[in-house]
């Protein structure tokens, strides 16, 4: 179990799709999944990560991450080791950092302007990450996700 699939999750439908696909990819390869959720660090200093200090923003991110994983795992028959990471950072920064030295980075997308794909989350990850980057559309059909999971060891 040496490989790691890193997936960015913000609680959106697109990110849950990406997570399901990441679980399938990991199941096929007997790898583990690292779920990365970022909460912004551009706000006032009181929303920054401070040990021992409760942060509403961090709690919202944690709940969104947990809900997304619960939703994805409910539809995932294969047992895939999962670890969860909360980063007080911009999403693209957190993903680029976490993907270093890993085997695959997965991000979701809902389409949008092409310029966003060049300069936004997927575009920046694509340019800065040294491992393969999978961009998963929100409307990818279940057959393309669940078929490999059906063959994976449970």
């Amino acid at each position, binding site marked *: 179990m040496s490989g790691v699939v890193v997936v960015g999750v913000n609680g959106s439908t697109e990110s849950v799709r990406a997570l399901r696909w990441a679980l399938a990819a990991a199941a096929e390869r007997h790898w583990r999944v690292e779920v990365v959720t970022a909460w912004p660090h551009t706000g006032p200093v009181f929303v920054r990560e401070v040990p021992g200090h409760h942060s509403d923003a961090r709690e919202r991110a944690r709940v969104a991450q947990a809900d997304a994983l619960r939703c994805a795992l409910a539809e995932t028959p294969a047992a895939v080791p999962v670890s969860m990471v909360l980063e007080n950072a911009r999403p693209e920064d957190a993903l*680029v950092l976490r993907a270093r030295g890993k085997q695959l980075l997965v991000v979701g997308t809902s389409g949008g302007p092409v310029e966003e794909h060049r300069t936004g989350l997927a575009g920046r990850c694509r340019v800065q990450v040294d491992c393969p980057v999978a961009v998963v559309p929100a409307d990818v059909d279940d057959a393309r996700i669940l078929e490999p999971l059906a063959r994976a060891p449970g």
Partner: protein
Amino acid sequence: MQAVSPSILVAVDDEAGPALRYAVDAARRAGCAVHLLHVVVPGSVASATGIGEQLLHAAAEQAEGLAGGLAPVSTELAHAGPVPDVIVQRATRARQVVLQRRSGPGHELTEGSTCAEVARRASCPVVLVPDPRQDTGPATDTALDDLAGLQVTPVGPGVLP
């Protein structure tokens, strides 16, 4: 030869490299075919078709060697364009699309436009594979170093916090 079942589509535009290896490995694991596509845009120089055929032939040989008989390999030379449109159209019947991420002189504009356009519009997952032979390494961002000490919450398999 056209692949029948949902296959993994690889766009071949140059020497087949890491993207081809990634695609064949994924196809072997998924038990599906690999479909190699090269696009010749109308108006290209006359030699483009011959060059495309050679590229596909070499890529198919390499893919078949990597597959070891565990993943059928098919090829397609498409005379159409623009390139992203052709890949997106073919993606409608693919399991996933694998593209080689190019970098370095001469690749900035085409790589960016093709990868971004296909990733934006494809109906299936698109995997962009870097080429360590060409990449000068991921762009550095000193802001990332600030993240190194942030909290990581490891959780056991399948356990929610």
